[in-house]
């Protein structure tokens, strides 16, 4: 039987990874992720977890060591944030394009400059075109659960793509919630042992990643994109399997909250969703028909489900904890608009940006965004709303 514990998000990531019986963990400390690897090191050094722990000298090497171990046929784990993710970008891109499955936790953090160590989603969002699957979590329970689901998803033969489990730095990584921690037996019953063959093995000598001409490389890219789309289906299957095993379902690639008959929707990513739920409940109490779409997966982007969820609304606002420098908007706003395509016509919509660099993304700010949407005169794009201290009802 599992156990009910009060855990930080980082501990949930550690316990989730440990339950998946990784062969090897390589990591480098960085705020706010550090306690993930500290906890795992403690488990390995105490003998509680049978895994190789490689204490590397940088995130570039963290991703390189796990890449080598994965190429040699191991289940591997690492975690990082912000500058660490930026430093590991080179082997990070290669991990997905080598199609080596793994799970990496990202305690999301704002990118420097200006100098900062606090929360934000700019790090994970900035690498969304690196071929990884990216999942964002709202609660600590979800972090633990999605690490288990992440391995099942990544290792599915239809997918074979590494997975990021992202959660808000500090707000989730350092704050405690009550969490059901499965027993090892329960985790084993859900997640089968790693069964993929080693790519580098003298028993079957092969050249891994030789120089590849464009015609052939194009086929690799196409296959990767097709696997990304196939992953959308596998996400839903894994969610159902997980619900059967543990009684918890998250709705797959998106969660639609009170969207039945909704006139307006807030679209959220990660921990901000909790505050947005309160806003939706409060406005429903006032007779304003608000609902919420939580983007659980951003890569692959669940375009069909977003389109379906937002098809009937008069207006929507997408709240981003990061920016898209090319669009005067947040990145998920841009992508939600792309997903809607022709269905955008007739809707009021705007991008709301807040919670950068650890700034609070408050209920009051989200309520202000919602009221602005409800008060929209006519359809079309409205100016980007910067959620700051001044934006209150």
């Amino acid at each position: 039987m599992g156990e009910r514990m009060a855990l930080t998000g980082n501990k949930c990531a550690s316990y989730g990874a440990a339950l998946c019986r990784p062969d090897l963990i390589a990591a480098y400390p960085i705020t706010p992720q550090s306690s993930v690897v500290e906890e795992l090191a403690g488990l390995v050094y105490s003998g509680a977890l049978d895994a190789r722990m490689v204490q590397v000298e940088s995130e570039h090497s963290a991703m390189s060591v796990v890449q080598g171990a994965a190429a040699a046929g191991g289940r591997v784990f690492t975690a990082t944030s912000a500058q660490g993710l930026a430093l590991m970008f080179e082997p990070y891109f290669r991990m997905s394009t080598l199609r080596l499955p793994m799970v990496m936790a990202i305690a999301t953090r704002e990118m420097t400059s200006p100098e900062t160590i606090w929360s934000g989603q700019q790090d994970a969002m900035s690498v969304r075109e690196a071929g990884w699957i990216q999942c964002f979590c709202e609660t600590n329970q979800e972090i633990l659960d999605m690490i288990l689901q992440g391995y099942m998803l990544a290792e599915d033969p239809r997918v074979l793509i590494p997975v990021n489990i992202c959660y808000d730095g500090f707000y989730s990584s350092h704050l405690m919630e009550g969490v059901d921690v499965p027993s090892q037996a329960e985790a084993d019953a859900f997640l089968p042992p790693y069964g993929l063959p080693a790519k580098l093995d003298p028993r079957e000598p092969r050249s891994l990643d030789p120089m590849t001409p464009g015609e052939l490389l194009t086929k690799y890219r196409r296959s990767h994109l097709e696997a990304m789309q196939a992953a959308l289906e596998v996400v839903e299957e894994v969610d159902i399997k997980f619900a059967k095993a543990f009684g918890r379902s998250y709705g797959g690639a998106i969660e639609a909250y009170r969207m039945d008959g909704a006139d307006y929707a807030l679209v959220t990513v990660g921990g901000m969703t909790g505050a947005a739920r309160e806003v939706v409940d409060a406005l429903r109490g006032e007779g304003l028909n608000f609902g919420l779409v939580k983007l659980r997966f951003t890569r692959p982007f669940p375009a069909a489900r977003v389109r379906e969820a937002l098809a009937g609304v008069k207006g929507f606002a997408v709240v981003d904890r990061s920016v898209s420098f090319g669009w005067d908007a947040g990145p998920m706003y841009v992508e939600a608009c792309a997903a809607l395509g022709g269905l955008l016509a007739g809707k009021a919509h705007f991008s709301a940006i807040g919670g950068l660099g650890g700034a609070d993304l408050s209920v009051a700010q989200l309520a202000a965004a919602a009221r602005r949407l409800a008060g929209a005169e006519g359809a079309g794009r409205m100016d980007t709303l910067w959620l700051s201290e001044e934006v209150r009802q």
Partner: protein
Amino acid sequence: MSYMDILKTAPQVLTPGTSACQGCGGELILRRVMQIAGANSVFAVPPGCMAGAGAVGWSDTNGCTAPMHIPLLDNTASFMSGVSEMYQRRGRGDVNIVAIAGDGASADCGFQSLSGAAERGARMLYVCYDNEGYMNTGFQRSSTTSRGSSTSTTPSGAAINGKEQGAKYVPLILAMHNIEYCATASPSHMPDFVAKVKHGLEASKRGFAYIHVFSPCPTGWGFKPSESIAVARRAVASNMFPLWECERGRWYMSENRSPITMAQFVEGIGKFSRLDAAALEELQEAASARYELIRRLCAK
């Protein structure tokens, strides 16, 4: 078994017909290291001359009889750390884990990864073939390029004549990591070379083994392809490239009490053809100082 017997009888592991330049020192080093390590190995050859020459293969074709990967230019040692850990975990420590990388991938952008793996005692043999620059991309300078060398990024100009800095002496830095085995070798001294590679492979079962090999480059340095071994021999004879080894703090060297001069070493090498007297003097002082330092380390 003598070194000759090993080289004559051990099967070749490298793809036949790689497209290295005539007289390439790196190709000889690669071929011999792979032959001595054998097919029960995992090899990594990062971007550089040997990858460019086709060691890792083209498209889906490769004639190597052992698995090989082209890691990133700057992560060879850390990538192979992961491979090594998995082979140990699976109870297959008999598999040789061997990296063969140039000086750019080892001494410059790969240096952090190399230092990290050495410090952790990752179990592998790491061979650096040092041809003193980025020869695969057109002879640019690296941190191991000798002072005064004319390269495509440190040309012999009227204002500045060749590389202004001396070479970074990487093998000594690696030895200071307290690794299991550290050595220098030269393709001109094959008995010594074979013994050190064998020694390094044995040591790689216990920890990190590093061999820094002098790799003459006729195309980039500007000398006749037929002169490669002679150039390597002169590098050793001049004490510019002393041969030594260090095993867990115990130092040994091949003493050379009557060295040839650096003027004799640079003779006929194009990249040194416009050396002025001052630069030649600095090269001579650097070689003498390096030899003296190693000699003291090896003194009983």
